[in-house]
């Protein structure tokens, strides 16, 4: 049996699952969100969709490179190497400054911190 999601999509899914089961998803994300994330060393990208207290994660099999990100219908995106993701919030901030982290807009950082701060 292969899992539905592994790696970062599974981590994000877990955070959203916890919010949903404890009926906190709508409160934490009152507005609908479509955000794509690409780990540049571990493609493809995936799309997080949150709307009306529900969520979905879609693996975007064809989005494997930075240049593909602008073709996605999304509010924001974040592209970064795994190494920087594992350096946490400070690493990501430094990565934006050094252009190793690419974002469509800074909403991506706000959403990511909300998603990873579940607990």
């Amino acid at each position, binding site marked *: *049996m292969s*899992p*539905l*999601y*592994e790696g970062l999509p*599974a981590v994000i899914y*877990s955070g959203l699952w*916890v919010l949903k089961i*404890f009926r906190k998803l709508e409160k934490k994300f009152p507005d609908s969100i479509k955000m794509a994330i690409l780990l540049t060393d571990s493609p493809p990208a995936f799309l997080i969709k949150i709307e009306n207290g529900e969520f979905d994660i879609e693996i975007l099999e064809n989005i494997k490179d930075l240049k593909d990100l602008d073709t996605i219908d999304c509010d924001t995106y974040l592209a970064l190497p795994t190494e920087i993701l594992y350096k946490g919030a400070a690493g990501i901030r430094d990565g934006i400054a050094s252009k190793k982290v690419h974002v469509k807009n800074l909403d991506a950082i706000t959403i990511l911190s909300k998603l990873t701060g579940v*607990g």
Partner: protein
Amino acid sequence: MVEKMTALERILTVLEGKIPDRVPSFCLGGDFDFVEKFMNSPYALTDEDIQHLDKDNVSYGIPYMHAIIAKFCPPEILSGGLDAKIDLCWQNPNMGLPIKLESINDYIIHSGGYFKIVVRDEGIPHWWYAGPALLKKENIEDYWSRANDLRPTKESIRNFAKIRKNMLKKYDIVVSQGQPGPFENCVFGIGHANFARFARKEPSFLEQHIEFQWETIEEPMMKMILKTKPEVVMCGDDYGYNDGLQLPPKLWRRFIKPILARYVKMAHDEGAKFLIHSCGAIGEVFPDFVEIGIDGVESLKPKNNDLKMYREKYPEITLVGTIDDSEMLKYESPEFVRNSIKKSIQTLGKKGGFIPGPTNFLLDQPAENIVACYKAIQEFGNY
């Protein structure tokens, strides 16, 4: 029901070998499967409960699920409470972000093992250890070179004291402070086969690795935990399989016991009680637990451990857990659970020294059986 003792008084009384007002209860936590079952049961947290718990900043994090544990409180504490009080629970530190070694093209956790996060077909997440990564000596030496990345940081125990204080003050629940033990840290990284090989052929290399993990991870983490002044520390270190120890007792005594004794001494020196969570059949090392001063042993699946003998032969050690969660709590009826708890208390808890609860993290047991378990501890636990 008006209680004669607080949960803290009750737990400390038992761990000091005295008899409290009633038998206290314990819950290690629960995985995503249990949370899913519980939240889809008649006992689920209501909007009112959630509002109350949010006001007190109670953690919903899995697997420690303090919010669900608080739901078991009596209505005097939480108006929608289940009146099946849990007195003692657990929380472990965040052991830091994964690192990538030059000699291994993948990310590993602090112990040197792999950790997997998956979402199964039915949409339920699952997080668990997935195997050792330090399979060659060069990997282990590479791991040693990353000491600075492996040391715990203040972030590892962020909010620990606050969470503990809050749970105690608002919900009368003692949160024991956990951290992984020396055997798990070692074998999660290098694997059982390497442990056995090095123990036989290069014992000094194995000792060097165990000492490295003590100095880099375990001792600094213990110091940080103890600075938060916990009342109870509980280290997780599984030594047993279902039918015996995972390693010969003489190897456990040579490589693991001396380090475990350091954990116990550090905790006791700071005035904390020390419990160990250790799964499987671990009777062979019970005399050693007594010798190094462990206050209580948790898990103790009844099919794998002669609990009656432990109770009689080792009265110094409080038996924690002992309620079969892999078969009884999963397959039997609430009435069967109730009767079984009654018998357990009669057999093991007559003279104190007993903090019953499911032996491990709750997984896929029906919520009604877990509620029946804690209600029965309350019903039959009066001294």
